[in-house]
């Protein structure tokens, strides 16, 4: 157990150090997210109650597409640099390898959101920094990161990996996007009734985390 934790931390630290020096993944995600918000702000004349209705959808669209861009790099970079076999040679459970990559991806997504959410709040005048919205953001981001990490590993083996990841990710993230948008909308407007969207997000995260942990060996070894 101690070794597994040490291995997970080693992967997270390595991915973070590599990214801080290469700066391709975070720059890509941040640029995309910021540009998207600016375009939404300039192109859509949103005001009053319309912002409350449409805002959560715009926020999650921005997060989802930015995440898709960044997470695609997770294993593609290992594949392109030829470092993936080095990882697979190590005596590390494939589930632990998945957790290490997932935590690194989450870290990058949270950094992107730390810039995007205040900017969103500023541009659209919505209270997306209140604790209830932040909790929904954490749960939704976790769901995106679980699927993104899993599918990034699968797509890395394919020649069409850049195109394959969105094709795999978009249909499977529909429940989480719907759940996150609805829960965010309720949290912003203060509505307490309706389906338990937060419960859906938690259930989605638990089910897919378990499945991804168990199936990652087959995804990564091709």
């Amino acid at each position, binding site marked *: 157990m101690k070794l597994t934790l040490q291995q997970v931390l080693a992967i997270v630290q390595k991915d973070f150090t590599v990214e801080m*020096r*290469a700066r391709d993944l975070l720059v890509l995600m941040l640029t995309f997210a910021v540009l998207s918000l600016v375009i939404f702000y300039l192109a859509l004349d949103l005001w009053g109650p319309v912002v409350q209705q449409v805002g959560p959808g715009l926020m999650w669209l921005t997060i989802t597409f930015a995440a898709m861009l960044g997470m695609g790099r997770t294993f593609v970079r290992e594949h392109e*640099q030829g470092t993936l076999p080095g990882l697979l040679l*190590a*005596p590390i459970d494939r589930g632990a390898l998945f957790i290490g990559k997932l935590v690194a991806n989450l870290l990058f997504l949270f950094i992107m959101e730390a810039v995007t959410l205040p900017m969103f709040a500023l541009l659209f005048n919505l209270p997306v920094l209140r604790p209830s919205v932040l909790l929904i953001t954490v749960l939704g981001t976790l769901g995106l990161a679980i699927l993104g990490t899993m599918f990034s590993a699968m797509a890395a083996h394919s020649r069409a990996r850049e195109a394959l990841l969105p094709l795999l990710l978009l249909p499977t993230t529909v429940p989480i996007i719907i759940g996150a948008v609805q829960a965010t909308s309720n949290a912003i407007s203060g509505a307490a009734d309706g389906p338990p969207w937060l419960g859906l997000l938690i259930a989605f995260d638990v089910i897919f985390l378990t499945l991804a942990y168990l199936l990652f060996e087959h995804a990564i070894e091709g």
Partner: protein
Amino acid sequence: MGDSETSGMDPVVAVQGLTKRYGVQTALDSVTLSLDRNERLAVLGPNGAGKTTLIAVLATLARPEAGRLRVMGFDSVSEPNEVRRRIGVIAHGSYLYEELSARENLQFFGRLYGVQDLEARVETLLKLVDIYPRRHEPIANLSRGMQQRVALARAFVHDPDVLLLDEPDTGLDQAHLTLLASLVQGRAIPARTVILTTHNLERALELCSRVAVLAQGRLVYQAASAALDRAALHDAYHRLAGAAP
């Protein structure tokens, strides 16, 4: 690594009927071989003979369709992590992160293997492969030969019982070919079991105690180096491998 897993009589590497296919192409066809402690086997063969596939399967990077591999008594399918703990691999790629320095790369791989007293181990290896003065530079700044030397250190970081070397001399200059020879033959560090692939017959005879020829995925020839006459090996290699003399 401990020596307690196998008795003195058990082979360190035992391969039985290993078969690997890529689609309709058979890369390895019922390969059987066995290596005792500290034995060094050179696998010769032309391009496409299956040498790299053999190393990949032995390293647990590729799953065989049939056959069995045991390393130090551990089965590669049911106990892959025990096998991985006991092997060190040098392949065509260095497996190194170009944004990290030589030192950081070795520290990372050492942590993955749970190496005790890692800092001392890393320092020793960096000095051994003659990279110590440039240990803080990113791998991307090092020459191909230097990267190959760091890759050598990476393969040794967890002190493996078995070394799998796929054409390890690529990019090394004469001085570091001598270093490679001393590592493989157990002069610079304690001896261990080695499987090495190469095109170079002279290097195979120089480094290894046994020589085998792989042709079209089949192991067609095996002999002890000491018993071999070089001319006879050249003849056998070209005849069996189908290469032009």
